[in-house]
């Protein structure tokens, strides 16, 4: 009982007499303000991490700052970035999608094989590939909504289903000599000496569109509400089940677009593509500051998260680090990002 008193007395003594009271008041007032600034830090965090990564790799490699390198990073990251858009929508509803990578692979095989082996007009084949991805999204959403199954298990199942279907349908063969329409998005044009693919533009437009939908429309607002408090959302008369199902279908369509970007970038339909992309997409979302508990996060954060992955991978390659270390570092990054998120929430 007496010990705390002597401690405060000692504290007052070091504070040179009468001035000990105002600092105590300041700390008391300071406690209410960090909430706002803490939120701002949470939003700025990913951007600072990206800049720090850029600064670090600039000091490590002279090639890093070259314009061609940036173009490469963007090309490399856009497929994962597009997958991460769909993933963001699902994580905002407090769900998760482990199937995104293999669903994309299935979509890419469907569109290339239909066009090359079955002579389906390329544009129709592309649309059918996207529809296939949307159908698996519908299956995911239907099981999550209809049977109230956990998204983790449902998408773990469809991850394997999509993987198997991809290999069965493609007979394990890579599909090449694609019609030019399919590789069009892989072609580049120059902005101030930097080569940019059309596919990167499509992906960036998709980010912009998703930003608009999430921030400015009732549909997007309800995605946040649903993830934040499904009970409150239901009580306010919002058709929660329909909304959730829609999110999974829309995510499927986005994976279909990612499939097209993948085909355009690689120039082939590869049945082995996308198997670890689910973790990359989730990493991008989490690095971007979106909470795995739903209802909080931004699409801009996801873009930054995807760029962090791209920059770190590219930088490590330039430094000559073996690829297995890249995977190690990506794993560490996810855990750090989730931990920061969790600690920030507990404080706020």
């Amino acid at each position, binding site marked *: 009982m007496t010990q705390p008193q002597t401690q405060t007395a000692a504290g007052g003594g070091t504070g040179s007499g009468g001035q000990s009271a105002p600092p105590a008041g300041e700390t008391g007032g300071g406690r209410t303000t960090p909430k706002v600034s803490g939120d701002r830090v949470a939003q700025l965090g990913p951007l600072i991490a990206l800049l720090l990564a850029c600064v670090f790799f600039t000091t490590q490699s002279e090639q890093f700052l070259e314009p061609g390198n940036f173009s490469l990073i963007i090309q490399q990251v856009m497929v994962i970035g597009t997958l991460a858009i769909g993933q963001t929508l699902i994580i905002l509803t407090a769900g998760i999608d482990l199937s995104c990578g293999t669903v994309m692979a299935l979509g890419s095989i469907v569109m290339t094989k239909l066009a090359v082996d079955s002579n389906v007009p390329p544009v129709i084949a592309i649309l059918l590939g996207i529809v296939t991805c949307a159908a698996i999204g519908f299956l995911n959403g239907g099981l999550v909504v209809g049977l109230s199954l956990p998204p983790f298990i449902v998408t773990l199942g469809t991850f394997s289903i999509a993987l198997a279907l991809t290999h069965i349908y493609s007979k394990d063969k890579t599909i090449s000599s694609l019609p030019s329409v399919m590789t069009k998005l892989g072609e580049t044009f120059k902005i101030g000496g930097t080569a940019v693919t059309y596919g990167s533009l499509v992906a960036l437009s998709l980010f912009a569109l998703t930003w608009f939908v999430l921030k400015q*429309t*009732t549909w997007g*607002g309800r995605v946040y509400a649903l993830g934040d*408090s499904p009970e*409150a*959302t239901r*009580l306010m*008369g919002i058709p929660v089940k329909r909304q959730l199902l829609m999110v999974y279908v829309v995510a499927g369509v986005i994976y279909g677009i990612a499939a097209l970007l993948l085909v355009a970038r690689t120039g082939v339909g590869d049945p082995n593509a996308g198997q670890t992309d689910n973790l990359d997409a989730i990493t991008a979302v989490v690095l971007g500051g979106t909470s795995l508990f739903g*209802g*909080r996060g931004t699409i801009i954060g996801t873009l930054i998260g995807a760029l962090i992955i791209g920059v770190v991978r590219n930088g490590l390659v330039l430094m000559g680090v073996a690829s297995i270390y890249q995977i190690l570092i990506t794993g560490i990054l996810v855990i750090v990002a989730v931990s920061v998120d969790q600690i920030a929430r507990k404080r706020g």
Partner: protein
Amino acid sequence: MSTTTENRTPILSARGVHKRYGNVTAIDGADFDLYPGEILAVIGDNGAGKSSLIKVLSGATIPDSGTVSLDGEEVRFKSPLEARKAGIETVYQDLAVAPALDIATNLFLGREKRRAGPLGSVLRMIDHKGMKAEADKQMKSLQIGIRSMSQAVETLSGGQRQGVAVARAAAWARKLVIMDEPTAALGVKESAQVLELIKRVRDNGLPVILISHNMPHVFEIADRIHVHRLGKRVAVVDPKETSMHDVVGIMTGAVVHDLEHPDEHDGAGGSRAASAEPGAEQAE
């Protein structure tokens, strides 16, 4: 105040409502009346059927028989949405607000204000500015002192959060507000704030049905008290003329209150026969 209610028509009333779940009779010929401009507390022991009655009034449950009238006209709500469309809003005890969303968004949850013209009708764009302005107006009219409508609800105290829920109900209700244990999750000081708020809702012209277990709260703000027991209304008392002790007595059956149905057992027998009728008709 209790004398004037006799001459007025109730804004919401129910007559002879029955509801059974299997062998359990949840509502056993209950009557109900809410008059304009009042706070009517509904009290009853656990299992007395008061929440079943409230669910009928708010559209969450469809009664087996009996009538519900709003403004003298019979209504048959098939869902809470229909009751809400008719002007009845409900505040739930477990703070049905979304914590990460801001106050304005919460006030307009499910009823978002859209931008004018094709931006709103085609693109379904939200009018963030308009929502904030209206939320600000609503919060001020109820004297809830919150500075910014873009503040996330989770940054508010429990009392302020329930204030947001009450303000939302009051903003959308055209006829009346049902409050289901609005202070159950709150501390003493915060409860006091919410009780003051409920009075202001009434004073602003909306009648309130208050379901509560908390006798001091009920006696502090209710204009009349509806006592529910064994699935029906057994008494309506004026808190100014009746002691808390007597009300608890009526609630638990220790005191038999002389109202419309002096003989409980007879009423129960009659109601079982009545509730069996609709089923029999359907069979034929």
